[in-house]
Protein backbone atom coordinates (compact mmCIF):
# COMPACT_ATOMS: atom_id res chain seq x y z
CA UNK A 1 0.00 0.00 0.00
CA UNK A 2 2.83 2.40 0.91
CA UNK A 3 4.35 2.10 -2.57
CA UNK A 4 1.01 2.69 -4.24
CA UNK A 5 0.38 5.80 -2.14
CA UNK A 6 3.87 7.11 -2.91
CA UNK A 7 3.31 6.53 -6.65
CA UNK A 8 0.05 8.42 -6.48
CA UNK A 9 1.56 11.40 -4.64
CA UNK A 10 4.39 11.53 -7.18
CA UNK A 11 1.78 11.59 -9.96
CA UNK A 12 -0.10 14.43 -8.26
CA UNK A 13 3.01 16.38 -7.21
CA UNK A 14 5.51 15.96 -10.06
CA UNK A 15 7.84 18.55 -8.54
CA UNK A 16 8.17 16.62 -5.27
CA UNK A 17 11.57 15.04 -4.68
CA UNK A 18 12.79 12.58 -2.03
CA UNK A 19 9.18 11.73 -1.18
CA UNK A 20 8.82 9.49 1.88
CA UNK A 21 5.70 8.02 3.46
CA UNK A 22 5.52 7.05 7.14
CA UNK A 23 2.96 5.90 9.74
CA UNK A 24 0.56 4.60 7.12
CA UNK A 25 -2.33 2.95 8.95
CA UNK A 26 -6.02 2.25 8.66
CA UNK A 27 -7.93 4.49 11.05
CA UNK A 28 -10.96 3.21 12.91
CA UNK A 29 -14.07 5.34 12.51
CA UNK A 30 -16.85 5.60 9.98
CA UNK A 31 -18.21 2.69 8.02
CA UNK A 32 -19.09 4.48 4.81
CA UNK A 33 -15.45 4.95 3.76
CA UNK A 34 -12.16 3.26 4.54
CA UNK A 35 -9.86 5.83 6.19
CA UNK A 36 -6.10 5.51 5.79
CA UNK A 37 -3.84 7.99 7.59
CA UNK A 38 -0.20 8.69 6.75
CA UNK A 39 2.56 11.30 6.99
CA UNK A 40 4.47 12.45 3.92
CA UNK A 41 7.71 14.40 3.60
CA UNK A 42 9.23 15.74 0.42
CA UNK A 43 11.41 18.48 -1.00
CA UNK A 44 9.98 20.92 -3.50
CA UNK A 45 12.04 23.65 -5.13
CA UNK A 46 14.59 23.36 -2.34
CA UNK A 47 12.00 23.55 0.46
CA UNK A 48 11.34 20.64 2.82
CA UNK A 49 7.61 20.01 3.26
CA UNK A 50 5.85 17.67 5.75
CA UNK A 51 2.12 17.03 5.77
CA UNK A 52 -0.39 14.64 7.34
CA UNK A 53 -2.98 13.16 4.99
CA UNK A 54 -6.10 11.01 5.13
CA UNK A 55 -7.20 8.86 2.21
CA UNK A 56 -10.92 8.15 2.22
CA UNK A 57 -11.35 5.17 -0.05
CA UNK A 58 -14.64 3.58 -1.12
CA UNK A 59 -15.10 0.31 0.76
CA UNK A 60 -16.10 -2.95 -0.93
CA UNK A 61 -19.50 -2.60 0.74
CA UNK A 62 -20.74 -0.27 3.45
CA UNK A 63 -23.59 1.35 5.27
CA UNK A 64 -23.98 4.08 2.73
CA UNK A 65 -23.72 4.17 -1.00
CA UNK A 66 -22.96 7.85 -1.32
CA UNK A 67 -21.60 10.24 -3.83
CA UNK A 68 -17.92 10.96 -3.09
CA UNK A 69 -17.92 13.70 -5.71
CA UNK A 70 -20.68 15.58 -3.91
CA UNK A 71 -18.84 15.42 -0.59
CA UNK A 72 -15.64 16.62 -2.27
CA UNK A 73 -17.41 19.49 -3.98
CA UNK A 74 -19.20 20.63 -0.80
CA UNK A 75 -16.00 20.54 1.26
CA UNK A 76 -14.04 22.43 -1.39
CA UNK A 77 -16.74 25.10 -1.50
CA UNK A 78 -16.73 25.43 2.28
CA UNK A 79 -13.01 26.21 2.48
CA UNK A 80 -13.73 29.94 2.39
CA UNK A 81 -16.26 29.76 5.28
CA UNK A 82 -15.84 29.57 9.09
CA UNK A 83 -16.98 25.91 9.12
CA UNK A 84 -14.01 23.85 10.40
CA UNK A 85 -13.27 21.24 7.75
CA UNK A 86 -10.21 19.49 6.37
CA UNK A 87 -8.63 20.83 3.22
CA UNK A 88 -9.42 18.65 0.21
CA UNK A 89 -6.48 17.80 -2.02
CA UNK A 90 -7.58 15.37 -4.72
CA UNK A 91 -10.58 13.35 -5.84
CA UNK A 92 -9.47 10.22 -7.66
CA UNK A 93 -11.96 8.16 -9.64
CA UNK A 94 -9.37 6.04 -11.47
CA UNK A 95 -9.26 2.61 -9.82
CA UNK A 96 -5.77 1.86 -11.10
CA UNK A 97 -4.14 3.58 -8.11
CA UNK A 98 -5.77 2.01 -5.04
CA UNK A 99 -8.31 -0.43 -6.55
CA UNK A 100 -11.25 1.78 -5.63
CA UNK A 101 -12.01 5.52 -5.95
CA UNK A 102 -10.83 7.76 -3.11
CA UNK A 103 -10.25 11.31 -1.96
CA UNK A 104 -7.11 12.66 -0.33
CA UNK A 105 -7.59 15.27 2.35
CA UNK A 106 -5.73 17.01 5.13
CA UNK A 107 -5.47 15.03 8.37
CA UNK A 108 -6.87 17.31 11.04
CA UNK A 109 -5.64 17.31 14.63
CA UNK A 110 -7.92 16.01 17.35
CA UNK A 111 -9.67 12.87 18.49
CA UNK A 112 -13.19 11.63 17.81
CA UNK A 113 -15.73 11.72 20.61
CA UNK A 114 -15.90 8.07 21.53
CA UNK A 115 -17.05 7.27 25.07
CA UNK A 116 -13.39 6.74 25.97
CA UNK A 117 -12.52 10.41 25.54
CA UNK A 118 -14.47 11.29 28.66
CA UNK A 119 -16.36 14.05 26.89
CA UNK A 120 -19.63 12.50 27.97
CA UNK A 121 -18.52 11.63 31.47
CA UNK A 122 -20.67 13.43 34.04
CA UNK A 123 -17.56 14.57 35.91
CA UNK A 124 -16.47 16.98 33.20
CA UNK A 125 -19.39 19.33 32.56
CA UNK A 126 -17.11 22.31 31.85
CA UNK A 127 -15.39 20.66 28.89
CA UNK A 128 -18.72 19.33 27.65
CA UNK A 129 -20.32 22.79 27.83
CA UNK A 130 -17.47 24.33 25.83
CA UNK A 131 -17.70 21.63 23.17
CA UNK A 132 -21.51 21.86 23.15
CA UNK A 133 -21.36 25.60 22.44
CA UNK A 134 -19.00 25.09 19.51
CA UNK A 135 -21.21 22.24 18.26
CA UNK A 136 -24.14 24.65 18.00
CA UNK A 137 -21.97 27.46 16.60
CA UNK A 138 -20.80 25.20 13.76
CA UNK A 139 -24.37 24.20 12.97
CA UNK A 140 -25.35 27.86 12.84
CA UNK A 141 -22.39 28.54 10.51
CA UNK A 142 -23.45 25.71 8.18
CA UNK A 143 -27.03 26.96 8.04
CA UNK A 144 -26.05 30.56 7.35
CA UNK A 145 -23.52 29.81 4.63
CA UNK A 146 -24.28 31.73 1.44
CA UNK A 147 -24.62 28.52 -0.57
CA UNK A 148 -25.39 30.32 -3.79
CA UNK A 149 -22.37 32.56 -3.32
CA UNK A 150 -19.98 29.62 -2.89
CA UNK A 151 -21.37 27.79 -5.90
CA UNK A 152 -23.43 25.11 -4.22
CA UNK A 153 -26.56 25.62 -6.32
CA UNK A 154 -25.10 22.91 -8.53
CA UNK A 155 -25.79 20.19 -5.93
CA UNK A 156 -29.55 20.60 -6.44
CA UNK A 157 -31.88 23.28 -5.14
CA UNK A 158 -35.24 22.06 -3.79
CA UNK A 159 -38.37 23.93 -4.76
CA UNK A 160 -40.40 25.95 -2.28
CA UNK A 161 -43.15 24.20 -0.31
CA UNK A 162 -42.82 20.57 0.73
CA UNK A 163 -40.12 19.62 -1.78
CA UNK A 164 -37.35 19.37 0.86
CA UNK A 165 -39.35 16.84 2.86
CA UNK A 166 -40.53 15.00 -0.29
CA UNK A 167 -36.98 14.58 -1.59
CA UNK A 168 -35.74 13.07 1.66
CA UNK A 169 -38.73 10.76 2.09
CA UNK A 170 -38.39 9.60 -1.50
CA UNK A 171 -34.64 9.06 -1.21
CA UNK A 172 -34.80 6.91 1.92
CA UNK A 173 -37.92 5.01 0.87
CA UNK A 174 -36.03 3.93 -2.26
CA UNK A 175 -33.09 2.76 -0.14
CA UNK A 176 -35.44 0.75 2.10
CA UNK A 177 -37.21 -0.83 -0.91
CA UNK A 178 -33.86 -1.75 -2.46
CA UNK A 179 -32.05 -3.08 0.59
CA UNK A 180 -34.59 -4.51 3.02
CA UNK A 181 -34.28 -8.25 3.48
CA UNK A 182 -37.75 -8.70 4.94
CA UNK A 183 -40.98 -6.70 5.20
CA UNK A 184 -40.72 -3.69 7.54
CA UNK A 185 -44.15 -2.91 9.07
CA UNK A 186 -42.88 -0.22 11.47
CA UNK A 187 -41.08 1.60 8.67
CA UNK A 188 -44.25 1.31 6.57
CA UNK A 189 -46.21 3.01 9.37
CA UNK A 190 -43.52 5.68 9.74
CA UNK A 191 -43.34 6.42 6.00
CA UNK A 192 -47.13 6.79 5.84
CA UNK A 193 -46.97 9.24 8.75
CA UNK A 194 -44.18 11.22 7.09
CA UNK A 195 -46.09 11.47 3.81
CA UNK A 196 -49.17 12.72 5.67
CA UNK A 197 -47.23 15.33 7.67
CA UNK A 198 -44.76 16.90 5.24
CA UNK A 199 -43.81 20.39 6.45
CA UNK A 200 -43.27 23.37 4.18
CA UNK A 201 -39.78 24.81 4.11
CA UNK A 202 -39.44 28.55 4.50
CA UNK A 203 -35.71 28.94 4.14
CA UNK A 204 -33.42 26.62 2.22
CA UNK A 205 -29.93 26.17 3.66
CA UNK A 206 -26.97 23.86 3.38
CA UNK A 207 -27.77 20.76 5.46
CA UNK A 208 -24.93 18.61 6.82
CA UNK A 209 -27.16 15.53 6.81
CA UNK A 210 -25.27 13.70 9.58
CA UNK A 211 -24.80 16.36 12.24
CA UNK A 212 -24.01 14.55 15.47
CA UNK A 213 -21.30 14.11 18.08
CA UNK A 214 -19.56 11.21 16.32
CA UNK A 215 -18.67 13.40 13.38
CA UNK A 216 -16.30 15.93 14.84
CA UNK A 217 -12.73 15.91 16.13
CA UNK A 218 -11.69 17.90 19.16
CA UNK A 219 -8.48 18.85 20.90
CA UNK A 220 -7.74 21.15 23.85
CA UNK A 221 -11.41 22.08 24.38
CA UNK A 222 -11.83 22.99 20.72
CA UNK A 223 -13.65 21.30 17.85
CA UNK A 224 -10.98 21.10 15.17
CA UNK A 225 -13.03 19.66 12.30
CA UNK A 226 -16.51 18.58 11.32
CA UNK A 227 -16.36 15.50 9.12
CA UNK A 228 -18.53 13.06 7.13
CA UNK A 229 -20.27 15.31 4.66
CA UNK A 230 -21.39 12.57 2.28
CA UNK A 231 -25.09 13.14 3.02
CA UNK A 232 -24.93 16.93 2.75
CA UNK A 233 -27.46 18.67 0.52
CA UNK A 234 -29.58 21.78 0.26
CA UNK A 235 -32.73 21.52 2.32
CA UNK A 236 -34.60 22.47 5.46
CA UNK A 237 -32.27 23.50 8.33
CA UNK A 238 -34.66 21.81 10.78
CA UNK A 239 -33.51 18.50 9.27
CA UNK A 240 -30.12 18.75 11.00
CA UNK A 241 -31.82 19.69 14.28
CA UNK A 242 -34.22 16.74 14.04
CA UNK A 243 -31.35 14.36 13.30
CA UNK A 244 -29.32 15.69 16.24
CA UNK A 245 -32.36 15.35 18.52
CA UNK A 246 -32.71 11.60 17.94
CA UNK A 247 -32.53 9.55 21.13
CA UNK A 248 -30.18 7.20 19.26
CA UNK A 249 -27.33 9.70 19.75
CA UNK A 250 -28.02 10.62 23.38
CA UNK A 251 -25.34 8.45 25.01
CA UNK A 252 -27.77 7.08 27.61
CA UNK A 253 -28.57 10.60 28.82
CA UNK A 254 -31.45 12.97 28.06
CA UNK A 255 -28.99 15.45 26.50
CA UNK A 256 -28.96 16.20 22.77
CA UNK A 257 -26.07 14.17 21.33
CA UNK A 258 -24.97 13.63 24.94
CA UNK A 259 -23.92 17.29 25.03
CA UNK A 260 -26.63 19.77 26.00
CA UNK A 261 -30.25 20.31 26.97
CA UNK A 262 -32.73 20.57 24.12
CA UNK A 263 -34.00 24.02 25.18
CA UNK A 264 -30.45 25.32 25.44
CA UNK A 265 -29.64 23.85 22.03
CA UNK A 266 -32.62 25.53 20.35
CA UNK A 267 -32.16 28.89 22.11
CA UNK A 268 -28.46 29.19 21.34
CA UNK A 269 -29.01 28.06 17.75
CA UNK A 270 -31.73 30.70 17.24
CA UNK A 271 -29.53 33.43 18.69
CA UNK A 272 -26.59 32.54 16.49
CA UNK A 273 -28.31 31.72 13.22
CA UNK A 274 -31.31 34.01 13.33
CA UNK A 275 -33.35 31.01 12.20
CA UNK A 276 -36.44 30.31 14.31
CA UNK A 277 -36.67 26.74 15.55
CA UNK A 278 -39.97 25.17 14.52
CA UNK A 279 -40.41 22.31 16.98
CA UNK A 280 -43.08 20.62 14.86
CA UNK A 281 -40.68 20.48 11.94
CA UNK A 282 -37.88 19.27 14.20
CA UNK A 283 -40.24 16.49 15.32
CA UNK A 284 -40.98 15.58 11.69
CA UNK A 285 -37.26 15.42 10.91
CA UNK A 286 -36.60 13.36 14.03
CA UNK A 287 -39.07 10.76 12.73
CA UNK A 288 -37.44 11.02 9.30
CA UNK A 289 -34.05 10.66 10.99
CA UNK A 290 -35.06 7.35 12.57
CA UNK A 291 -36.33 6.12 9.19
CA UNK A 292 -33.14 7.30 7.48
CA UNK A 293 -30.86 5.70 10.07
CA UNK A 294 -32.77 2.42 9.77
CA UNK A 295 -32.48 2.62 5.97
CA UNK A 296 -28.71 3.17 6.27
CA UNK A 297 -28.40 0.16 8.57
CA UNK A 298 -30.50 -2.00 6.23
CA UNK A 299 -27.98 -1.27 3.47
CA UNK A 300 -25.16 -2.48 5.70
CA UNK A 301 -27.07 -5.54 6.86
CA UNK A 302 -27.72 -6.55 3.26
CA UNK A 303 -24.00 -6.24 2.41
CA UNK A 304 -23.12 -8.30 5.49
CA UNK A 305 -25.82 -10.94 4.99
CA UNK A 306 -24.90 -11.40 1.33
CA UNK A 307 -21.21 -11.78 2.24
CA UNK A 308 -20.11 -8.65 0.31
CA UNK A 309 -18.71 -7.32 3.58
CA UNK A 310 -17.25 -9.24 6.52
CA UNK A 311 -17.40 -6.16 8.75
CA UNK A 312 -19.07 -7.39 11.92
CA UNK A 313 -20.08 -3.78 12.74
CA UNK A 314 -22.62 -3.91 9.92
CA UNK A 315 -24.14 -7.06 11.40
CA UNK A 316 -24.07 -5.67 14.91
CA UNK A 317 -25.94 -2.54 13.84
CA UNK A 318 -28.64 -4.76 12.38
CA UNK A 319 -29.23 -6.25 15.81
CA UNK A 320 -29.89 -2.84 17.36
CA UNK A 321 -32.52 -1.77 14.80
CA UNK A 322 -35.24 -2.53 17.39
CA UNK A 323 -33.92 0.45 19.40
CA UNK A 324 -34.63 2.72 16.43
CA UNK A 325 -38.00 1.06 15.90
CA UNK A 326 -38.75 1.65 19.57
CA UNK A 327 -37.90 5.35 19.14
CA UNK A 328 -40.22 5.48 16.12
CA UNK A 329 -43.01 3.73 18.03
CA UNK A 330 -42.61 6.23 20.90
CA UNK A 331 -42.59 9.25 18.56
CA UNK A 332 -45.64 8.06 16.63
CA UNK A 333 -47.52 7.12 19.81
CA UNK A 334 -47.95 3.38 19.20
Amino acid at each position, binding site marked *: MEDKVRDYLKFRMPKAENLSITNLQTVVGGTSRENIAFEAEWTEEGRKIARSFIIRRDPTASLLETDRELEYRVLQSLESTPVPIPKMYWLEQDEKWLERPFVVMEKMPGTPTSARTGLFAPEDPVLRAKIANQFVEILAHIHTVDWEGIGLSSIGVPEAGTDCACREIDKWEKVIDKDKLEPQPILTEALLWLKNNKPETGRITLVHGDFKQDNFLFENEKITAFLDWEMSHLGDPMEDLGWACMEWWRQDTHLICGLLEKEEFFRYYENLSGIKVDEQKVFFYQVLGCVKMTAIILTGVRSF*SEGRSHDITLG*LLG*LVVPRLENELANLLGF
Partner: protein
Amino acid sequence: MRPTFDKMFEGINYTLLNDIMPELSSSFAMTRVLILSLTINQISAIWQNTAQFPLIEENKDLRDVLAAASRTLKATKQDYKNESLEGLTREIDAELQREYPSGEDYPALQSLLEENCNLKEVLVNTITALEEISRDYKSQALDELRKKIRAHLRKHL
Protein backbone atom coordinates in the same frame (compact mmCIF):
# COMPACT_ATOMS: atom_id res chain seq x y z
CA MET B 1 -34.41 -11.13 12.60
CA ARG B 2 -31.85 -9.69 10.21
CA PRO B 3 -29.02 -10.41 10.19
CA THR B 4 -29.79 -13.94 11.40
CA PHE B 5 -27.71 -15.15 14.32
CA ASP B 6 -25.94 -17.78 12.23
CA LYS B 7 -24.66 -14.95 9.99
CA MET B 8 -23.51 -13.08 13.10
CA PHE B 9 -21.68 -16.14 14.45
CA GLU B 10 -20.01 -16.54 11.05
CA GLY B 11 -19.03 -12.86 11.11
CA ILE B 12 -17.55 -13.05 14.62
CA ASN B 13 -15.54 -16.10 13.66
CA TYR B 14 -14.33 -14.40 10.49
CA THR B 15 -13.16 -11.36 12.50
CA LEU B 16 -11.42 -13.50 15.11
CA LEU B 17 -9.58 -15.71 12.64
CA ASN B 18 -8.88 -13.30 9.78
CA ASP B 19 -8.59 -9.85 11.38
CA ILE B 20 -7.41 -10.48 14.95
CA MET B 21 -5.42 -13.73 14.76
CA PRO B 22 -2.81 -12.43 12.24
CA GLU B 23 -2.13 -9.47 14.56
CA LEU B 24 -1.30 -11.68 17.54
CA SER B 25 2.26 -12.62 18.43
CA SER B 26 1.95 -14.81 21.54
CA SER B 27 0.91 -18.44 21.33
CA PHE B 28 -1.18 -17.94 24.49
CA ALA B 29 -3.29 -15.24 22.81
CA MET B 30 -3.63 -17.32 19.64
CA THR B 31 -4.86 -20.31 21.67
CA ARG B 32 -7.41 -18.13 23.45
CA VAL B 33 -8.74 -16.89 20.10
CA LEU B 34 -9.05 -20.47 18.86
CA ILE B 35 -10.96 -21.40 22.03
CA LEU B 36 -13.26 -18.42 21.51
CA SER B 37 -13.87 -19.51 17.94
CA LEU B 38 -14.72 -23.07 19.03
CA THR B 39 -17.04 -21.69 21.73
CA ILE B 40 -18.86 -19.62 19.15
CA ASN B 41 -19.31 -22.71 16.97
CA GLN B 42 -20.83 -24.52 19.94
CA ILE B 43 -23.19 -21.64 20.78
CA SER B 44 -24.17 -21.47 17.13
CA ALA B 45 -25.08 -25.17 17.15
CA ILE B 46 -27.19 -24.70 20.30
CA TRP B 47 -28.87 -21.65 18.78
CA GLN B 48 -29.84 -23.68 15.69
CA ASN B 49 -31.91 -25.88 18.02
CA THR B 50 -33.62 -23.09 19.95
CA ALA B 51 -34.09 -20.29 17.43
CA GLN B 52 -37.52 -21.60 16.52
CA PHE B 53 -39.24 -20.69 19.76
CA PRO B 54 -39.47 -16.87 19.51
CA LEU B 55 -40.48 -17.21 15.86
CA ILE B 56 -43.25 -19.68 16.71
CA GLU B 57 -44.67 -17.12 19.16
CA GLU B 58 -44.33 -14.18 16.76
CA ASN B 59 -45.93 -16.09 13.90
CA LYS B 60 -48.83 -17.10 16.14
CA ASP B 61 -49.37 -13.44 17.14
CA LEU B 62 -49.12 -12.36 13.50
CA ARG B 63 -51.79 -14.90 12.59
CA ASP B 64 -54.03 -13.59 15.40
CA VAL B 65 -53.71 -9.99 14.28
CA LEU B 66 -54.29 -10.89 10.62
CA ALA B 67 -57.34 -12.98 11.54
CA ALA B 68 -58.70 -9.93 13.39
CA ALA B 69 -57.94 -7.80 10.32
CA SER B 70 -59.80 -10.24 8.07
CA ARG B 71 -62.87 -10.17 10.32
CA THR B 72 -62.88 -6.36 10.57
CA LEU B 73 -62.36 -5.86 6.84
CA LYS B 74 -65.17 -8.30 5.97
CA ALA B 75 -67.51 -6.38 8.29
CA THR B 76 -66.36 -3.09 6.72
CA LYS B 77 -67.17 -4.38 3.22
CA GLN B 78 -70.86 -4.24 4.07
CA ASP B 79 -70.72 -0.42 4.40
CA TYR B 80 -67.75 0.44 2.26
CA LYS B 81 -67.43 -1.10 -1.20
CA ASN B 82 -63.89 -1.14 -2.49
CA GLU B 83 -62.19 -3.52 -4.91
CA SER B 84 -58.78 -3.44 -3.23
CA LEU B 85 -60.42 -4.28 0.10
CA GLU B 86 -61.83 -7.46 -1.51
CA GLY B 87 -58.37 -8.37 -2.79
CA LEU B 88 -56.72 -7.74 0.55
CA THR B 89 -59.23 -9.88 2.46
CA ARG B 90 -58.62 -12.73 0.01
CA GLU B 91 -54.84 -12.27 0.41
CA ILE B 92 -55.06 -12.41 4.21
CA ASP B 93 -57.29 -15.49 4.19
CA ALA B 94 -55.04 -17.26 1.67
CA GLU B 95 -51.96 -16.59 3.79
CA LEU B 96 -53.70 -17.75 6.96
CA GLN B 97 -54.64 -21.01 5.28
CA ARG B 98 -51.25 -21.67 3.77
CA GLU B 99 -49.41 -24.63 5.28
CA TYR B 100 -45.70 -24.63 5.92
CA PRO B 101 -43.66 -27.85 6.07
CA SER B 102 -42.47 -28.80 9.56
CA GLY B 103 -39.59 -30.95 10.81
CA GLU B 104 -40.03 -34.11 12.86
CA ASP B 105 -39.87 -32.54 16.32
CA TYR B 106 -40.17 -28.80 15.76
CA PRO B 107 -41.07 -26.70 12.75
CA ALA B 108 -37.93 -26.18 10.65
CA LEU B 109 -36.23 -22.79 11.13
CA GLN B 110 -36.18 -21.98 7.43
CA SER B 111 -39.86 -22.71 7.13
CA LEU B 112 -40.66 -20.50 10.14
CA LEU B 113 -38.62 -17.65 8.69
CA GLU B 114 -40.44 -17.95 5.38
CA GLU B 115 -43.80 -17.99 7.16
CA ASN B 116 -42.76 -14.95 9.23
CA CYS B 117 -41.74 -13.04 6.13
CA ASN B 118 -44.96 -13.85 4.27
CA LEU B 119 -47.17 -12.95 7.24
CA LYS B 120 -45.33 -9.64 7.68
CA GLU B 121 -45.73 -8.86 3.99
CA VAL B 122 -49.49 -9.27 4.32
CA LEU B 123 -49.41 -7.11 7.47
CA VAL B 124 -47.58 -4.36 5.55
CA ASN B 125 -50.25 -4.54 2.82
CA THR B 126 -52.93 -4.32 5.51
CA ILE B 127 -51.34 -1.23 7.11
CA THR B 128 -51.14 0.49 3.71
CA ALA B 129 -54.74 -0.41 2.88
CA LEU B 130 -56.02 0.83 6.25
CA GLU B 131 -54.31 4.17 5.59
CA GLU B 132 -56.00 4.43 2.17
CA ILE B 133 -59.44 3.46 3.49
CA SER B 134 -59.18 5.94 6.37
CA ARG B 135 -59.02 8.79 3.85
CA ASP B 136 -62.67 8.42 2.90
CA TYR B 137 -64.17 6.03 5.44
CA LYS B 138 -63.97 6.35 9.22
CA SER B 139 -64.99 3.65 11.65
CA GLN B 140 -64.20 2.74 15.22
CA ALA B 141 -63.59 -0.89 14.24
CA LEU B 142 -60.88 0.13 11.77
CA ASP B 143 -59.28 2.43 14.35
CA GLU B 144 -59.22 -0.41 16.84
CA LEU B 145 -57.71 -2.74 14.27
CA ARG B 146 -54.95 -0.21 13.66
CA LYS B 147 -54.30 0.04 17.39
CA LYS B 148 -54.14 -3.75 17.61
CA ILE B 149 -51.59 -3.87 14.79
CA ARG B 150 -49.47 -1.19 16.47
CA ALA B 151 -49.62 -2.99 19.81
CA HIS B 152 -48.45 -6.13 18.04
CA LEU B 153 -45.56 -4.25 16.42
CA ARG B 154 -44.48 -2.82 19.75
CA LYS B 155 -44.68 -6.23 21.44
CA HIS B 156 -42.37 -7.77 18.87
CA LEU B 157 -39.76 -5.00 18.63
